[in-house]
């Protein structure tokens, strides 16, 4: 397994370089260094001299990929691409274009994002699996039909609706929790209850339907019939045998998102005033802050690769037949 892991890590390097290159290309197709400077300097009284000074101070005055004026390696290293990208591989993200330390910003925002994302993920998974097993238990009854219709209805509604409706009903009409805001520490729970509940509820329909399909596929297998024939109760059949055997497709969809929980949720965090990472990238794109955009895309890619590796490892845990060679 270790050889496999080393191989995956080595494979990750060209992928990350490729992603970085693509981000750079896409970003600079839309925004020139002059545009970036103007965005940072504001809209009033911005002179060409001020733009030139700003670019020079931030290294945006250099050519993008190839510096013909330099000698030797300088032709490649004295460029915007190299200067802005190379040190990211040492996890040195530097400062944003408005001068803030990116690593520190990410560190500060990660906590609130996780405070929402982890309970939403864990609870969501638990509720969706339980609900879908319940539907399987009551399969071909009216409860099953009602449950499936409910799932389809729930997955047809935009998550924005859940957020706005939830805020209106629970926070405004019933006044049970704050509409938005956040405080760090244990006092944060009143601010988290509603967004977590909405997060769980908004994802329930699609997840439950997907898991129900997986479980229904398993429920007709021979080992289930054998278990029943041996007198194993239905809940034990479902939770111990069916669930375990349906784990591979569940893990495929679930484990890969675990590292990405750090990245937060744009909508939930915006509406509930959670100071997380969800809006960091969007705000950076709006502010044309390339330093933040490249860092966040880099971290996102890295976490996705980590998620895929974790998924592979998790297969070996639930299915002894799987070997990572």
């Amino acid at each position: 397994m270790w050889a496999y892991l080393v191989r995956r890590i080595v494979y990750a390097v060209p992928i990350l370089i490729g992603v970085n290159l693509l981000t750079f290309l896409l970003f600079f197709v839309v925004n020139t260094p002059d545009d970036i400077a103007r965005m940072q300097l504001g809209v009033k009284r911005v002179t060409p001299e001020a733009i030139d000074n700003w670019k020079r101070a931030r290294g945006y005055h250099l050519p993008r990929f190839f510096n013909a004026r330099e000698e030797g390696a300088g032709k490649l290293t004295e460029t915007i691409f190299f200067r802005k990208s190379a040190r990211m591989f040492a996890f040195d993200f530097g400062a944003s274009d408005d001068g803030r330390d990116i690593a520190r910003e990410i560190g500060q925002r990660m906590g609130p994002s996780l405070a929402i994302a982890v309970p939403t993920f864990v609870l969501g998974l638990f509720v969706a699996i339980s609900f879908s097993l319940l539907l399987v238990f009551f399969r071909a009854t009216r409860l099953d039909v009602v449950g499936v219709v409910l799932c389809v209805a729930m997955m047809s509604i935009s998550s924005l609706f859940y957020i706005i409706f939830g805020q209106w009903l629970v926070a405004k009409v019933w006044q049970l929790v704050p509409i938005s805001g956040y405080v760090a520490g244990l006092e944060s729970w009143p601010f988290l209850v509603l967004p977590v509940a909405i997060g769980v509820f908004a994802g329930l329909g699609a997840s439950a339907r997907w898991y129900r399909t997986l479980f229904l596929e398993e429920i007709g297998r021979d080992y289930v019939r054998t278990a029943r024939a041996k007198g194993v109760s239905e809940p034990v059949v479902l939770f111990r045998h069916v669930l375990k055997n349906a784990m591979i497709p569940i893990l495929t969809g679930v484990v890969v998102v675990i590292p990405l929980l750090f990245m937060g949720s744009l909508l939930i965090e915006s509406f509930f005033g959670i100071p997380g990472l969800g809006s960091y990238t969007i705000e950076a794109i709006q502010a044309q802050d390339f330093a933040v955009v490249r860092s966040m895309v880099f971290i996102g890619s890295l976490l996705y690769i980590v998620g895929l590796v974790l998924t592979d490892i998790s297969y070996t845990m639930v299915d002894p037949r799987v070997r990572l060679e």
Partner: protein
Amino acid sequence: MRRNSPLWLLSSCLLAASLAGCGKVWNDPYPGERADAPVLYSAFVNRPKHLDPVQSYSENEATFTYQIYEPPLQYHYLKRPYELEPGAAAEMPRVRLIDAEGRSLPDDAPAEAIAATEYTIRIREGMRFQPHPAFVGGLAMPDDPRTIADFGRNGSREVIADDFVYQIKRLAHPQLHSPILELIAGYLPGLRDLHRQLRDVAVPAGGWLDLREYPLEGVEVVDRYTYRIRLAGTYPQFLYWLAMPFFAAVPWEAERFYAREGMAERNFTLDWWPVGSGPYMLVANDPNSRMELAANPNYRDDRYPCVGEAGDRDAGLLEDCGRRLPLIERVVFARERESIPYWNKFLQGYYDASGISSDNFDQAVQTVGDGDVRITDEMQAKGIELVTSVAPTVMYMGFNMLDPVIGGNGEPARKLRLAISIALDQEEFISIFRNGRGVAAMHPLPPGLFGHRGGEAGINPHVYDWKDGRPVRKSVDEARRLLAEAGYPEGRDAKTGAPLVIYLDTTGTGLGGKAEVDWLTKQFRKIDVQLVVRATDYNRFQDKIRSGNAQIFYWGWNADYPDPENFFFLLHGAQGKVASQGENAANYRNAEFDRLFERMKAMRDGPERQRIIDRMIAILQHDAPWNWGFYEVVYSLQHAWIENRKPGKIVRNTLKYQDIDGALRAQRRGEWNRPVTWPLAVGTLLLVALVVPGWRQYRRRERSTALSAEAG
């Protein structure tokens, strides 16, 4: 359900919680904070980019910087028109006009005779900077400090003239990119040279650029409390700049402190943690969530004004006459990215004041009679008050004067621009898209500024007629007539017969933008002109404006200071966007207007200046380089417990004057936010109602046998 079953216990707990919850607020977004404390609660949407007074220029940053730094001058809080008064200065600056031989000139000397202007500024004695660790020598770096308070010890010192001079030198700092460097360098001798000189100075890592070592030609310290600025020529508007934090005192110790190793990596910079001598100091800075100002204990003895404009006494704005400022101990700014939670928290009493978004306009305001507005009954019942004011802001449609069809000084193009100006029903636009929050503009100068004339004398006679005591837009027939005279009868080129197509460049691509574009297309269709909208992203739009490739476009300007110069310069030939990358986006150039502008700029307010302004306005109205658009009207709501709040966008250091009736706020918050707990009990019962049949079904299934099932 058995008495000791989990469901029974859960229901009992929820019922108990429901009962216990009666009369207690559950939705307080400020846990642990007393509602009756003298704290103002406000919100911000966009995080401020800069809090360094040499860089900060945006309105959302001014909310903080104007409270933290105290420039030499400030605007009188209550008087209108706006009036400058001493802030950190002990008195208004002594201004000396000097001719080429160095002799003093009288105050009314013509601009061309003035070779230099000298401002001698005497600051108040005994002012002190806010408590800050920068003033404590040899302070060790604590382990992973998060806020400035983590440094443990604070010091302070007296504010002296050198601190103001130091800040002026900071305008030239090569790493700070002050937005007004080029503007001020045009008047202040030596500033540009200092900038060039500093660019070549190598600052070692962990070191700092001690600007005290670099002289600046146009500025000198006279004594401990006096300094002098000598400008080339004359620039009377410089006094307004002295009312901005660009010219406030900044201690050199702050720069030394923040230059220490490990500071920038932890976001400890002057741009993040300001050090000023104003009424407030920044004590919490998480711009993603919450920023907090606390009263500066070292703030000078500053008192609430005892005079204002007519009506201020009746409005209760003079009741705190003579009270020491600031009146509020803390100001909390919470970040709200979305308007829905912002609005609802205002209605719950968790924000003390709020603007009105289009989504909530009908809930907050209703139009009565002839365009008058008043607050809705729902708001009135809560004691919420509506405050309106015309902002020193103009939103206009610019005609690119370099465009071969619509631009230029030729008569046909001028008539075409006028025809469009008449056809675009600005009043309808304000009504539909701004909920009435605007006043149709007659020229670039908003109300409240010197030179603006109201009534019949102030109308644009090329677009409006004065009828029954009010301006009435000229008819579409008049627009068609002008269009025909311009060479486009019925919207077609008289020579070629080709339809006239006008191109609007815009960045608006959203739903709101689409509706506006549809409306605009309809307006142009009234005179048979085709409108083509070229929507693009912000960068490309800016490129088009800079290169003069746009034909018509929307633009706006928010005043820096209340002087007509700050609006007329937007049409000054020397400010042409294409020619000199200035602020004249329409690239308008008129020799007479430019000459009058130079004269007007150097004059003091008076009949002669008014006469020149009248002439300048007449030229602009005749040439029509803009469709004058509208002046923005700001609607703001405030709760009954907030006191001394007077609108006025030019006055930005407003927080020190405001007060809170904390007891009333605590009472209202309690009344408005009683939790409704019955849904919890109902929810529990519903859960039980779902679980019980399910459980029965399960039991029945478990007990059933294959034989009985088949038989069944």
